[in-house]
């Protein structure tokens, strides 16, 4: 009786672990992402958050701040990369962010890509101002997804928090 119970318990345990690890491997997690801007002067910045693969190519767009398509070409590399392969970004588009402001969004990242050589890139452009290809670019690791990452252009820093 005990044996049977033990076997069932073990099986259940294995099952639980395997489903958990399966979810861990193939599922995705949501993170709160806060972008704090510097006090630059000018129009609101258009910022796109992208996932970059190990070869340095655009893998996926995670979030777009700025809704007017006419400014998208200003985000040069991103626009170029997605010029041919269309993507539906309507669900992940928010408002552009002005100097000194902060912007909080939820991004969704596939768990399999964390700690797997991917990078997070924050690319920014401001009307009649310099384009920042890598305003923030950090490796997509468990560490970066719980800390603070300094920006180099219009972004002062980016913070993440599991949602």
């Amino acid at each position, binding site marked *: 009786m005990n044996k049977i119970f033990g076997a069932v318990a073990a099986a259940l345990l294995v099952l639980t672990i395997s489903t958990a690890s399966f979810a861990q491997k193939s599922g995705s997690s*949501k993170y*709160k992402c*806060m972008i704090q801007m510097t*006090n*630059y*002067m000018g129009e609101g910045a258009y910022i796109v958050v992208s996932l970059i693969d190990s070869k340095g190519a655009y893998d996926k767009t995670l979030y777009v701040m700025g*809704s*007017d398509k006419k400014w998208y070409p200003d985000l040069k590399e991103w626009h170029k990369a997605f010029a041919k392969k269309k993507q539906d970004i309507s669900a992940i588009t928010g408002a552009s962010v002005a*100097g*000194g402001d*902060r912007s*909080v*969004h*939820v991004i969704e990242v596939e768990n399999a890509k964390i700690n797997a050589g991917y990078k997070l890139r924050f690319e920014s452009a401001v*009307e*009649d101002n310099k384009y920042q290809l890598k305003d923030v670019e950090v490796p997509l690791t468990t560490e970066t997804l719980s800390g603070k990452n300094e920006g180099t252009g219009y972004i002062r820093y980016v*913070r993440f*928090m599991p*949602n």
Partner: protein
Amino acid sequence: MTISIWRYSHLALAISSFILLTLASLTGIILAFEPITQKVQPFRSSDFEQVTLAKALPVLKKKYADISELIVDQNGFVLIKATDEEGEALEAYVDPANGNILGKPARKSDFFEWVTSFHRSLFLHETGRFIIGLDAFLLSLITISGLILVIQRQRSIKRFFAKIARDSWAQYYHVVLGRLSLIPILIIALSGTYLSLLRFKLVEEKKIAKEVNFDAIRSTPQEELQNIEIFKHTPLSEVESVEFPFSEDVEDYYTLKLVDREITVNQVTGDVLTEVPLSKATLVGKLSLNLHTGRTNAIWAVVLMIAAGNILFFIYSGFVITFKRRKNLGKNRYSADDARFVILVGSENGTTFKFAKIVHEQLLAKGEKSFITELNRYKQFPKAEQLLLMTSTYGLGEAPSNADRFLSLLKKYPQQQKLNFSVLGFGSHAYPDFCRFAYEVNNELTLQDWASALLEVHTVNDKSIDEFNLWMEAWSSQANISLEQKDSINLTAAVNLEKFRVLAITDARKDETFLLRIESLSSAKFTSGDLLAIYPAGDHRERLYSVGKIGKEIQLSVKLHENGLGSGYLKKLKEGEEIQARLVSNSHFHFPESSPSVILIANGTGIAPFLGMIAENRRGTSVTLYCGFRQRSSFKVYEDFLDRQHAEGRVQRIELALSREENKQYVSNLVERDASFIAGSLANKGVIMLCGSLSMQKDMITLLNNICTTQNGKDLSYYQSHGQLLMDCY
């Protein structure tokens, strides 16, 4: 002169910016609908005014655990950003009192986005923004110059909203609407300019640089959200946004963006960490944006929309006025040195030019050397024989802008030869100083020894073609130039003649005057002082007679001239005969019913309208009649009638001057004798009416002017322009 400077700048600015202003106004009208459509949405909590942060934050925090931001927009709608149960991003309008969702924000309409972008930069990015900004600045200059023009037109700021005379619809509404929408338009222009200055950093707008001292952040004592002092004192109406702490870490704080400052608050203890007031530039910028867009107030948005519509109207009407003015400046075929006829025009809007050109063109058509120019271009005209001066009056009896130097030029350039002049004033009785400048011109000319008046000064009220024709008729007969009558008739659009029947006609007396009584068969309305136009030869030739209204009958007093076209025709009429004629309203010579006292001065047949006026004087206005005749027998015809009127109190006093019998007096002798009575009457707003021969009128004007200046210290022209001297002489 100053008028011209402002007018030219007003015009130059308008020309340089009208295309852009048209675009900006059109898009502005469309954009005004945005705040209006927003206000009507039901996203405003009824408790909005009462709720403070201390009340709203705990409610919202409880209901939406990971709320990251709260935004209060210009409509008082409270928008929150959070995530829902499924972890999906949530943006919704909520009731801050209970956290209930009132609605989801709609995306800003693509159409309004597109129009806004065009309105702001014409799709030309920085260049476009600069152009639009400059245009806003120009608009403020146009508005200011327009304001000055209105003040000058009205003669004082106090009279800013006083009545405006109607010259042409474009000009009238340009001024009327200009006065009303000046302030909103100026606000649009200045706020637009300011927003551009901010955009181009010509006004330094400091971003808020808050330095939170993390070493000083305390984590005790803990304070409940609803008890934090700063939250208790901050109503939602003062809030623009609240950024919630990113995490529960004590180093993450609340950021309150209030209408006038930005505050950071420790999320654990409620300590105020930093407090930075917004810079003046930012505050003015916000105010400018509110005023420019109407986003805070739907009523203001409507005002802005109307004002933008008015800008379009101003552009249109402004150009109509300008083209009209330019069209009126024709070219001269003969030079000023050769001209026999010189027509000098004082015109503010070009209407007077139109009338002057009728005469000018007719003279040219007759082969006469006629020269037309502005009064300000008065100089020596060595071959001139006839000077025709036509002028309107600007503001309160001032000269129009192209005539304001005339009076000084007149003294500077005396003509070397004798010449005749005739002044025709254009104006409107809507102004108190009707044709005053024309009277001044006339009086000044009378003082020049080289100039003699061919006619009394005539006036044209509200562009009356009839009154203009009256003057043309009088002038051409005196100047011995038969003007191309056909044209002058053409001006009086389709003449409708009416039927009249002769009731009685007296025999011509010794001095060859006779009385004629007729009645209108079409019961035409008229009053004493109006004119009866007859066409003795059945052609275009018209003769006018001043009428007296006795009962319902028309009474004429006619002097028989040798070979006189009109008088000869009338003399031959028989009782019961029917004639074709028409009544011309001559409103400037009507009995002034509201006047406290009236002095009537007539010689000869000039008494005719006065007989009617006296008979109609039922209100008991104090009336004194001075009349002059050659002999007593001439007066006899009227004596019984006047005695009866006197007995009934319709005329208080009758003074008779006989020039060929008894005292051998002229009517002017009687007036001179009663100088203080006359002066007193004028000073008490009494009216003097003059009817009779031109020579009597001439003497009388000199005499009256003397009386006025010596006894009242005012020129006759003063009373003239106040409608206290009414004349109808021939």
